[in-house]
């Protein structure tokens, strides 16, 4: 076996035995294994069980997720709307369907398609809108998008740990005025994505990932991988 494919938990074992004085941080083999398991097993969930979920619980997870992103950004220029009540979901659902059915975007879509989609949207247990305020320059806007994506992903993993699945929706509707004004975005606000969230009964199959080694470049002198440093 290539030494470079040593599993993460082995390396941590080595590290912690060499430096046991680091005990006050709970960096353990189990910690890495548990985190790696959640990251590997997480799947995009596109069809949900009918059970309702709590908006407050989602808000707590989002808040925690927002603390876990260290990229410099402006948190006050990001915001989230969680639609979990029947009323809130109706409002979001109507705005989503307005965008789908409006002229120009999905003109080819037959009426019964729209109808089927409306029924699907109505059944989603919770919808989260991820919103950024446009900042003065491109660099800042890109960093806001990066930070928001990382927050969403931390949130996804925290939700997964609680058996909640989600899918990102970044279809062209997210830029459509029927949707953005429908959920009350200001003129300088952009909808990054919608998240559809819920419990699920069926777990989709995983799709194989390419090993990091295959996308790896070294700049500078290649370190001795056989360990005879």
């Amino acid at each position, binding site marked *: 076996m290539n030494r470079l494919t040593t599993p993460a938990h082995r390396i941590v074992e080595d590290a912690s035995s060499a430096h046991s004085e680091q005990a006050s941080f709970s960096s353990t083999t189990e910690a890495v294994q548990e985190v790696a398991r959640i990251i590997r097993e997480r799947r995009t969930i596109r069809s949900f069980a009918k059970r309702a979920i709590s908006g407050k619980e989602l808000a707590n997870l989002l808040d925690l997720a927002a603390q*876990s992103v260290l990229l410099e950004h402006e948190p006050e220029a990001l915001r989230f709307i969680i639609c979990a*009540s029947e009323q809130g979901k109706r409002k979001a659902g109507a705005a989503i369907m307005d965008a789908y059915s409006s002229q120009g975007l999905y003109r080819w879509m037959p009426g019964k398609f729209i109808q089927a989609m409306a029924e699907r949207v109505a059944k989603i247990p919770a919808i989260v809108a991820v919103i950024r305020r446009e900042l003065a320059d491109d660099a800042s806007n*890109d960093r806001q998008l990066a930070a928001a994506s990382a927050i969403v992903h931390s949130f996804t993993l*925290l939700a997964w740990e609680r058996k909640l699945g989600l899918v990102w929706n970044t279809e062209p509707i997210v830029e459509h005025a029927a949707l953005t004004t429908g959920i009350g975005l200001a003129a300088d606000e952009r909808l990054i994505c919608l998240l559809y969230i819920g419990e699920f009964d069926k777990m989709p199959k995983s799709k194989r990932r*390419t090993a990091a080694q295959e996308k790896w470049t070294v700049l500078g002198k290649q370190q001795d991988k056989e360990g005879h440093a």
Partner: protein
Amino acid sequence: MSLQTTMEQIREYDRFSARPVTEEQVLSLLDEAVWAPNHHMREPWRFIWIAKDYRDKLGETLAKNEQSQLLALIQEAAACLIVAAPVPSDEREAKDDFAAACCLVQNLQILAAASGIGMSWHLPMRFENETFCSATELQPNERFVGVLGFGYFEDHWTSKLEKRSVRIDIW
């Protein structure tokens, strides 16, 4: 230990421990991190390991700029990795790919924390410094997703812990 506990340990550090973080370690964390969601399985990322003897050369491209934190990372971090993403011509694909690569970086942040390793994440833009881009061999159809610095946590170092408040409305 739960994911939540690990996430609560993620914090910013002023300094990096001198204790080494090896190429093998980072690669093994990356092999878990690549399980990030990504649209149409484009796996839109590439990794550039900056070996120790390349740090000065890379640092020199920054000296004239005011990116002092980035410079400190490149000079001092126990390990330095750059994550780059392709920029497809389709605007939606480009956004999706960038976002997916950010998910991968966040996976790395969490996996590192579980291993007792801190990670700082900087995001330079191509137009901010072309010399830096060419020193990293960033391709014309690529962009940075992160210049990442890794180092072990040290107990006695103070961490900057300011709570970020994002607005969350519940409907």
